[in-house]
């Protein structure tokens, strides 16, 4: 039986995130005078290879759901960039379709725990008010958000508009994106949410 997640895609994300993390951590280490240390690039690299091995050995192995979700979680902040790299295979000229202006894509990354993380949180210089326990929506008041926000709950990807589980709907405007939980779901204390994506920024 097919698995509920696409392991082959997760493996691709892991492969790209491995070198993105490696580059990123090297830069941060340089800035910290060699004092910055993390095993994330190594962890990404080896988990990606081992999960890929199991996928090639048996693509329907049930245990891949857990290990695949772990790999996805490890990709974290590199996920959006990895998806763009995989989709485009190379950087190119980016035009904001709303303005026609040549732009660059700036990462959006918001991580918070309901009832724990102090509100508001600054994202790319803009304050985002966090939802409280029982609310069902959050507004990102950022301009020209690329309509491809990714949402995870406790490390697991949350689907859009799925009637059978916690899911969300996103409404994008030129000045904001509103994420509303579907199916009567609400935010709960201690839930760890990560919202990531990109916004167009004119250059």
């Amino acid at each position, binding site marked *: 039986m097919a698995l509920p997640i696409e392991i082959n895609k997760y493996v691709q994300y892991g492969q790209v995130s491995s070198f993105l993390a490696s580059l990123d951590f090297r830069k941060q280490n340089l800035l910290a005078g060699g004092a910055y240390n993390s095993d994330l690039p*190594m962890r990404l690299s080896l988990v990606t290879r*081992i*999960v890929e*091995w*199991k996928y090639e050995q048996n693509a329907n192995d049930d245990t891949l759901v*857990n*290990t695949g979700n*772990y790999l996805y979680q490890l990709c974290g902040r590199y996920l959006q960039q990895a998806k763009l790299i995989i989709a485009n295979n190379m950087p190119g000229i980016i035009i904001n379709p709303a303005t026609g202006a040549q732009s660059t894509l700036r990462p959006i990354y918001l991580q918070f725990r309901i009832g724990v993380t102090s509100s508001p949180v600054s994202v790319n210089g803009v304050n985002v008010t966090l939802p409280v326990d029982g609310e069902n929506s959050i507004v990102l008041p950022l301009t020209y958000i690329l309509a491809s926000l990714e949402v995870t709950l406790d490390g697991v990807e949350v689907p859009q508009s799925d009637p059978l589980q916690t899911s969300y709907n996103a409404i994008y405007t030129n000045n904001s994106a509103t994420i509303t939980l579907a199916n009567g779901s609400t935010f709960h204390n201690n839930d760890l949410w990560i919202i990531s994506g990109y916004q167009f920024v004119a250059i």
Partner: protein
Amino acid sequence: MAFTPGFSVAQGLDPTSFTITDTSSGDPNITGRTISLFQSDGSLLGGSAIDWPLSDGNTKTLLGVLTPWDFSLNIMVTWASSSPISGSTYTANEIVTFDGQSNEFAYSLVQQISSNQAMTSITNYLYNLALINSDILNAQRATSYGDQGAAQECLNRIYYFYINRNMFF
């Protein structure tokens, strides 16, 4: 037509077993075949060559031979022919490194982490997993350069981690 000896090796879900496929062609006078599994020290795995009668067809699955752990094997297939004289033989060989059990072990460790991420706070857990991962890759690299001994050493190191896993993980 000249005889062209050849075979291929594949492993399925069972990491202790593998299948050999006879891809040879060209001689209608073949009378029999044997498979020899040479370990890195030159000895035969199982103690003797394995008979592979023509009546078995072109594939033969060797069940449960890779115990207790993975092996790097120099696999030699010998074909006996009645031409040009009775008792003539042809041979083909290939070094094949089986890493299924090593990968299963590494995967089981990743499963443990994915179920309980605090596992990696155990001293050197991640470092030791990285060593295992490195040795799996190095075993295949050694194989591609024909160094069966180095490949087997890599597998032996992983086996050491496996039998002492309570100490390392």
